[in-house]
């Protein structure tokens, strides 16, 4: 439908402006420190980002469906603690540890699911309540930190396959599966429909409870998997310190990725960009040797700038599309693509 040829790369970058910011950040910091793009450093960044991504993916799906899960920090710690206990138990086996950790997380997800989707309670406050409650439970389960695990378990956090760290492999797998799920399965389409309008989705015969139910369970299980990975990386599972504030990190990454809290829109590419941006931002500030309180100032402002640039590009994109549509489409034709409601810009939504 485009009458003016546009380069797909340009369209892509206009759609994902954070990527540009990310590249600028990487180039700038690399030039001034010389150590950002070392394999050693990128490995650290990717490992951190992987842990966030594993939990952020199902969480992002929930947000697209119009729900939210704030309990991921506690589920992460739960995963670490359960895995740690298994590894210190009589049946110590890494696969069993992972499975049981994920089962425990799934259980938390199940409770969230029942509260939020079946009983219809406010997802925000129920998952916030669960965050506190599960955090308490984590500490009861393991008042003293568990540490010193088998190499087989540590492999999950520090091992590599074909030179690629295991957590990165897991995160990539999760991301690819989620992308496929969203784009290519009916349930994936339904996630968007539910997020836009539960009523419209219901009237289309969509299982408006089953899908978010399943996503909550997945969110709990994946957060716990992230916890097991973290415990394996650290070779320790301190219940009181694992995943503190993790829910906010995950949420920030998701929002940076252009996924709105109102639901109905977003992509896994966005999550990836958001996660990488957060990881690289913190890493860059450390490499640049910004002193500690200034780091907080800088990273807060960077968040604001990132979201501002995304919004501004969005605006530009709309204008460009509108202009192009005016040039190409006949005035009485159907509304031009991408030329959406000029008012909304004025309302400043």
């Amino acid at each position, binding site marked *: 439908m485009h009458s003016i040829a546009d380069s797909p790369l340009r369209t892509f970058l206009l759609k994902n402006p954070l990527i540009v910011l990310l590249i600028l950040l990487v180039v700038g910091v690399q030039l001034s420190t010389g150590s950002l793009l070392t394999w050693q450093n990128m490995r650290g960044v990717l490992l951190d980002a992987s842990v966030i991504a594993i939990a952020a993916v199902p969480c992002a799906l929930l947000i697209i469906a119009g729900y939210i899960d704030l309990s991921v920090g506690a589920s992460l710690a739960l995963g670490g603690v359960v895995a740690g206990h298994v590894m210190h138990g009589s049946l110590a086996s890494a696969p069993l540890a992972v499975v049981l950790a994920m089962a425990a997380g799934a259980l938390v997800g199940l409770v969230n699911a029942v509260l939020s989707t079946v009983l219809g309670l406010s997802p925000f406050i129920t998952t916030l309540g669960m965050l506190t409650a599960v955090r308490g439970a984590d500490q009861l389960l393991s008042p003293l930190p568990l540490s010193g695990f088998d190499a087989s378990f540590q492999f999950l956090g520090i091992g590599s396959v074909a030179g690629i760290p295991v957590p990165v492999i897991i995160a990539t797998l999760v991301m690819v599966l989620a992308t496929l799920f969203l784009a290519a399965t009916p349930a994936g389409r339904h996630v968007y429909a539910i997020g836009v309008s539960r009523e419209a989705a219901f009237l289309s015969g969509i299982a408006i409870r089953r899908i978010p139910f399943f996503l909550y369970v997945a969110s709990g299980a994946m957060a716990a998997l992230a916890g097991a990975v973290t415990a394996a990386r*650290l070779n320790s599972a301190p219940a009181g310190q694992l995943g503190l504030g993790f829910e906010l990190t995950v949420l920030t990454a998701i929002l940076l990725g252009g996924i709105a809290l109102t639901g109905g829109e977003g992509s896994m590419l966005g999550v990836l960009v958001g996660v990488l941006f957060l990881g690289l931002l913190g890493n860059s500030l450390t490499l640049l040797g910004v*002193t*500690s309180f200034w780091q907080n100032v800088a990273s807060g402002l960077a968040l604001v700038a990132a979201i501002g640039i995304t919004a501004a590009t969005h605006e530009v994109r709309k204008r460009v599309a509108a202009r192009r549509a005016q040039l190409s489409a006949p005035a009485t034709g159907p509304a031009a693509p991408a030329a959406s409601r000029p008012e909304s810009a004025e309302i400043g939504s």
Partner: protein
Amino acid sequence: APASSAAAGPVDKILFDFPFTSLPIYAALTPQIQAEAKERGITVELTNDNSDLSTQVSNLTAKVASDVDAVISFPMDPASLENVASQYTAAGKLWITYAGDLEAQTTSLKFSFEKSGRMLGEAAGEWATQTTGGAGKVLVIEDQLTQIGRERTEGILAGLKESAPGLEVVSQQQGVTPEEGLTVTSAVLSSHPDLTMVLAATGDAAQGAYQAFLSSGRSETDAKTYVGGLDGNLPLMQAMTKSPDSIARALVTVKPEEIAPAVVDIAVQAGEGNTAPIDLPVYMLTPGTPELQSFITSFGG
């Protein structure tokens, strides 16, 4: 056990990693370390861990490949940092554990948390024995979330029990900030209006307890009340100077101006091949302590 005494060499740059950036001690300590290092021609880099374990690990990992020669790190969870420590030593750098011991370390700067807790517990017990015949109700404001907190709490309880077995610990509550100390103490005071002693695993929580006593109408110099905590806390030290009878009766703390040279020293010495650990003394501050004023100054007051 020094894992890599081979990593000798002059130390030009040290990384000081103190994760609890929200604590006043962080702000008191860092400029002193920087000043001390500068005098010896050494640069200091700081991390910003925001009291978060995974941030601490990430930040340290990011610096493994940098040109720092030595890291002095306060591990939020010792076991979690073994891995990082061995990366540093493997890279030929010096790893100095601050307040703890790791297997992969070059050496360590020791503070005994259990011991300082015990010191406070014993002092409080002795005071109770002298003033109230060893009877009274105690609130312990503990910190179960960190390793050092747990050690301190154990020390306090053990010290109390040994020196004044007649004291009744009526409540143990979690709390590290002044606000938490205030809220918790106010609540316990209402179920135990005859509460006489609060011992806190942090000086900040003790300060909250002190305020709670005052706002419940207890006199600043009530002869039967005892507030004590671990770590320096400016308001409490100031209260101690105001009156010898202040209910702010004890703080067990290190001296920032001793830490700063020690931090630089231990790095330099390790660089020269001397990996003997340094044990930093702790001090018991009471209203009668003569150098109170110098402590206040070194805590930034």
